[in-house]
């Protein structure tokens, strides 16, 4: 736990408006018969001690907290109690910040996350402890997860690049798919999968987090597109979305899983495109650069392999991409995410489907120099290429992915040949991952949310310098 001196100031910051709560209580006393006014039944400050600040985004801020012992006995010696549970408390910021906070109606994102998290329950989906409504704010109290994939990937690049062990990648991926299968089975599309949103507990359990963009897709009454024009952070956005799909499917999450798999292998985003900003007319631009990054490795999507391709709203834009890339054999126009990959000749040319990914993959394994018996191997490539299927209808589903040969146990023993993956991604590993950075500097909390953090594909936390992310 952190020093009490600084954490106190944070708690004070967080509860700055609780004084207002007193006025509110007085007002409620006055109107004690009235169901028109809100009084919090449970207060954050009564149940939790805020230890520090974890991160911020458009939605608000996340704090690390520890449960106060409800039956704490002041006479008992300090430290004798059982270890207290840790929590991550997500505070949805009110629309306007400042001293005069008003009830402005909760955001759609808060409503989604609240309503979905209260229904969902799965070992690989983030666990919600409770929701507290207080001081005109929503506090979602989650189980604390010590790590996330972004942080784990980053750790493997410092101070030098060391590949993430193949068994760990396999366990992470399996758990991720398992959680995703549960979500999809329950008609929930996550719509914002990326390393920063995949949590890992200190015991190696993977939890899918941040359901603020997630929504139900069972018989939607309006097309999903009409609700949120832009979903999924650009690097993880699937080609169907990039080409303007309106009625998209869970397959968009599967593409993101492919991107995450690739990033775990290479420690870099595989399709690191530059986002084209929305113009002043708020029309959604074609993400030419991002699409280009994908085409560079996977080749162009072809109508014979993707039945609905020509019907995609932005198909003409793809045509223009072909024209602009014409006469550039080998796709030399864009350097790949790993410049050392030699893509000349053997594949990866703009019109050559598929071979580019195999090159990318083999280069990736070569750089990682996995021992032959501990390598993701050809099955890993098979899985990756099935996740990077252009046609969303043909793309691997979470259910099928869980049965992929990649997850088949090859070790001698009772489970040889079975789909057998540890639910502890750290199992058998010595690597010690750093704990989540928790800031106790008050000015971290005092500042309003970081710039340019509008949700839904616009630049988000992951684009900020690493130090600010966590």
């Amino acid at each position, binding site marked *: 736990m952190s020093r009490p001196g600084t954490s106190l100031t944070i708690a004070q910051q967080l509860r700055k408006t609780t004084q207002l709560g007193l006025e509110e209580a007085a007002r409620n006393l006055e109107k004690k018969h*009235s169901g028109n006014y809100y009084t919090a039944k449970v207060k954050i400050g009564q149940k939790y001690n805020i230890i520090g600040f974890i991160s911020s985004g458009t939605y608000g801020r996340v704090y690390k907290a520890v449960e106060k012992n409800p039956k704490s006995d002041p006479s008992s010696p300090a430290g004798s109690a059982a270890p207290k549970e840790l929590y991550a408390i997500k505070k949805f910021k009110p629309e306007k910040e400042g001293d005069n906070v008003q*009830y*402005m*109606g909760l955001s759609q994102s808060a*409503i989604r996350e609240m309503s979905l998290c209260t229904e*969902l329950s799965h070992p690989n989906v983030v666990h919600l402890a409770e929701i507290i409504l207080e001081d005109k704010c929503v506090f979602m109290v989650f189980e604390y997860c010590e790590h996330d994939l972004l942080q784990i990937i980053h750790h493997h690049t410092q101070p030098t690049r060391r590949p993430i062990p193949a068994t760990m990648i396999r366990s992470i991926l399996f758990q991720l798919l398992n959680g995703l299968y549960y979500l999809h089975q329950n008609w929930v599309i996550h719509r914002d999968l990326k390393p920063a949103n995949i949590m890992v507990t200190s015991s190696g359990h993977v939890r899918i987090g941040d359901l603020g963009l997630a929504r139900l897709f069972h018989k939607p*009454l309006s097309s999903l597109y009409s609700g949120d024009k832009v979903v999924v952070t650009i690097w993880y956005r699937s080609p169907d979305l990039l080409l303007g799909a309106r009625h998209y499917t869970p397959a968009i999450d599967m593409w993101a899983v492919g991107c995450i798999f690739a990033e775990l292998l290479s420690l870099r985003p595989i399709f690191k495109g530059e986002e084209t900003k929305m113009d002043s007319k708020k029309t959604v631009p074609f993400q030419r650069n991002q699409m280009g990054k994908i085409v560079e490795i996977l080749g162009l999507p072809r109508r014979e392999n993707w039945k609905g391709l020509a019907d995609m709203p932005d198909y003409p834009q793809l045509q223009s991409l072909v024209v602009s890339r014409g006469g550039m054999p080998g796709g030399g126009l864009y350097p790949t995410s790993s410049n050392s990959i030699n893509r000349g000749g053997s594949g990866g040319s703009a019109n050559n489907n598929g071979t580019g990914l195999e090159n990318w993959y083999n280069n990736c394994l070569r750089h990682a120099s996995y021992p032959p018996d501990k390598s993701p191997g050809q099955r890993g490539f098979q899985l990756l290429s099935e996740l990077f299927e252009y046609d969303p209808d043909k793309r691997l589903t979470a259910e099928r992915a869980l049965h992929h040969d990649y997850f088949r146990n090859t070790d001698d023993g009772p489970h040889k040949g079975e789909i057998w993956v540890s639910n502890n991604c750290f199992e058998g590993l010595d690597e010690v991952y750093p704990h989540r950075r928790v800031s106790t500097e008050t000015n971290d909390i005092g500042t309003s949310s970081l710039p340019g953090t509008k949700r839904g594909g616009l630049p988000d936390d992951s684009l900020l310098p690493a130090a600010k992310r966590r």
Partner: protein
Amino acid sequence: MAANYWTSTQRKYWTFTPEKLAEIRDDLDRQAAKAIEQHPYPDRRLMFIFLRDRLLQLAKRLPFRQQCVATALVYLHRYFLSTPMQNVNLYLLTATAFYLASKTEESPHHIRLVAAEARQAWPEFVPGDVSRLGEMEFCLISEMHSQLIVWHPYRSLIALKENQDLKLSNDELGLAWSIINDSYMTDLPLTCAPHLIAIIAMFLAVVFLPTAKAAGTLRPISHDTLANPDSGPFSSLVGRQALSGSFNAVIGNLQMSNHPGSQTNPAPNGKARASLNDSSSQRVDREKTIAAIKESEKLQNIMRFLVESGIDIEQMIESTQEMISLYDVWEQYSEKSIKDTVSRCLKSRALDN
């Protein structure tokens, strides 16, 4: 959860036996005895007809979906389990339920728009301050423990439409849809699984159709409405007053199918028994309907479906009875009298600002 009603919070926390529901309400009424005594409100079902009409009034100029109104009504049902109707500004609450439901049903309206619409509709009772609606949203969410996802019978009805054994006609589906809409005026959303309500609605619709046709009260249903029923108006069953007789006959028949060879009345609550004890003209109606049921292949198929589907026939009878009694009570509905009663209560209890 979302795909599985059986693990939903609705089933776990918001479905009660009629006895448990009565117990919760008795406790609440005791706590607010004084206010209730001073401002007695009419039958809950009549109050819900009133509230539904307020929602529809609000929805007149804001595009909405039937499911959004249905969700808002369920929110109100849940809210009144912890707050007596006399303790809250019903107009503000209705507007808030509509606003919140529009968000959970993914067709959100801006808070300012809903507040402006409510203010225009009920200037006496809705404060101009948008934040009051926002505060009421907190009350609503908190009382519902953030459990905002609601399961509706509409989806089950669509599944029944696909069932080839049942061969439901468009007229029957339209009637069933209206009956589902009406079920939100009763306690059924708090006591029944959504698929049970859909089955009840289908059953009543099939029994109803000949009478509705004969009485000329059948509203023609456009093809559009059936293709996308959710975008249509939140319509109610028309000509309901004429149908009580055949309804009761249906109940008798259901009971027979539940207890083959027995004519005794197994309905456990007095209410059902009382309304079965009907007049002689109704008895003639009933006999006619029973004869019709025996002749009708469709009804035979439905009976078989009911038995095979393994639903709780006892609960279905009780709940069907509850639907029928709604249509009886409906005859007493007077919007003006409720409006006046509510207005007096809000003013004297200073809830109107």
